């Protein structure tokens, strides 16, 4: 695609801008910021990736993956601010998910150990885990607040913190995984995944694109389960003290 063609695609930005202005939605400024940011960020990352792919230096691969994990962690921590030590819990979870994924892919020789594969797949894995972690923390903190009396009841009857928080934890894990599972049920029927479409547009055979997409879907399913469960089991003990009492969260609830 030439830069001229790319410029013409800005028509797709003009449409929401006109709609926003006409209907007084007040989204013009945010739309413009989003457009400019996406152009700058994607072009920048395009050149960075070009450089990393050309050099094939593992240090640059490591730095790229680290940047992804740090950015995702900082994004997720805002949603779990009420949980003590949430930053390192999210970071450990994302690092574990990345190591597990790349360990399986590279260990079994499913993908080659090149920057092209490692960085692309890491982006999908970490990005997906980030969304999962946000969904999980949103639901978990609201479950803990809404069912505080139930937690206190179970503790008062001689239950352990794990027993007291079990229902809230499983509910949050299930809720965060449902969108992933549901979207996978209709994949190929309702929507064609972006990565697969991209490969087909770039000239790859549809069957090959599907094979690779299946790999990514299975990865994402594992990531969803591991991210929610690991973050859940790292988070719940910080809600209690050593006398098995409920601690107040940072926002006082």
């Amino acid at each position, binding site marked *: 695609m030439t830069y001229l063609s790319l410029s013409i695609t800005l028509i797709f930005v003009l449409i929401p801008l006109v709609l926003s202005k006409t209907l007084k939605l007040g989204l013009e400024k945010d739309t413009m910021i989003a457009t400019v940011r996406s152009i700058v960020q994607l072009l920048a990352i395009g050149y960075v990736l070009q450089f990393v792919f050309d050099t094939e230096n593992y240090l640059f691969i490591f730095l790229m993956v680290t940047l992804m994990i740090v950015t995702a962690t900082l994004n997720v921590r805002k949603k779990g601010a009420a949980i003590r030590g949430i930053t390192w819990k999210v970071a450990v979870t994302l690092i574990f998910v990345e190591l597990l994924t790349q360990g399986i892919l590279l260990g079994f020789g499913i993908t080659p150990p090149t920057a092209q594969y490692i960085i692309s797949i890491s982006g999908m894995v970490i990005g997906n885990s980030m969304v999962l972690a946000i969904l999980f923390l949103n639901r978990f903190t609201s479950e803990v607040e809404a069912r505080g*009396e*139930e937690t*206190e*009841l*179970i*503790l*008062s*009857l*001689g*239950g*352990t913190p794990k*027993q007291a928080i079990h*229902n809230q934890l499983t509910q949050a894990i299930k809720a965060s995984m449902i969108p992933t599972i549901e979207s996978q049920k209709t994949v190929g029927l309702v929507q064609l995944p972006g990565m697969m479409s991209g490969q087909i547009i770039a000239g790859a055979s549809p069957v090959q694109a599907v094979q690779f997409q299946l790999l990514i879907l299975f990865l994402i399913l594992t990531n969803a389960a591991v991210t929610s469960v690991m973050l859940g089991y790292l988070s719940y003990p910080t809600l209690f003290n050593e*006398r*098995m*009492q*409920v601690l107040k969260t940072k926002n006082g609830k």
Partner: protein
Amino acid sequence: MNEHYKPAIHFHQVQYSVENLHILKNVTGSFPEGRITTLVGPSGAGKSTLLKLCNGLLSVDSGDIFIQDKNINEYEPVELRRKVGIALQSAPMVRGTIFQNLSLPMSLQGKTLSEAEAADLLEDVGLKKELLHRNTQDLSGGQRQKVSIARTLVNRPPILLLDEITSSLDRTSTQDIEELIVKINRKYGTTMIWITHNLKQAIDVGDYTWVMMEGEVVETGESELLKTPENERVQRFVKGEGE
């Protein structure tokens, strides 16, 4: 007041605060073993906090609590909570049926409660056994409170803490519960601490009473003291109750 009785619970200069708010101020006193002691006083006096300290849901800031002559901190939390049962004011339920709620104390220990045992417990608190498989969301406030009491009894705790358990019950149900509590106390020698706003109930059912105001214990003695209190603040409180 308790010189003739062994204390089941003893408070020694107990203080408890939340942020800068002093909930309990230097509370000292004993609750005699095998007797019913009522806790009365206006809202915000620190009565519910005192019960949660005894059950280990909260810990003191300073001072000591002794449960059957042993410092509360020497108990494992789980052991303490099975020894000192509490029926919470809001009668919280876990989602599910009455049977699931009655089974909860046992299932937390990896044990099971038979339907026959659960039915007996229900009848003890004046509910029909046919209700056993009814969802707790369909219960009235009074029925929830009765289920809550029955559930607390499953662990057969030697000390029972009752936080306004009859506040949402009608007169007949209140009378049923009062009789039940007295029956349990006499039959098993269970030590009871009962928070109530009903002064007549405190006099009729309680052996002893503590009057608390603004985090302090202002008067203690046999329940009859509520008829002729010595402390002026208590006199005003009792008078206000009758108005």
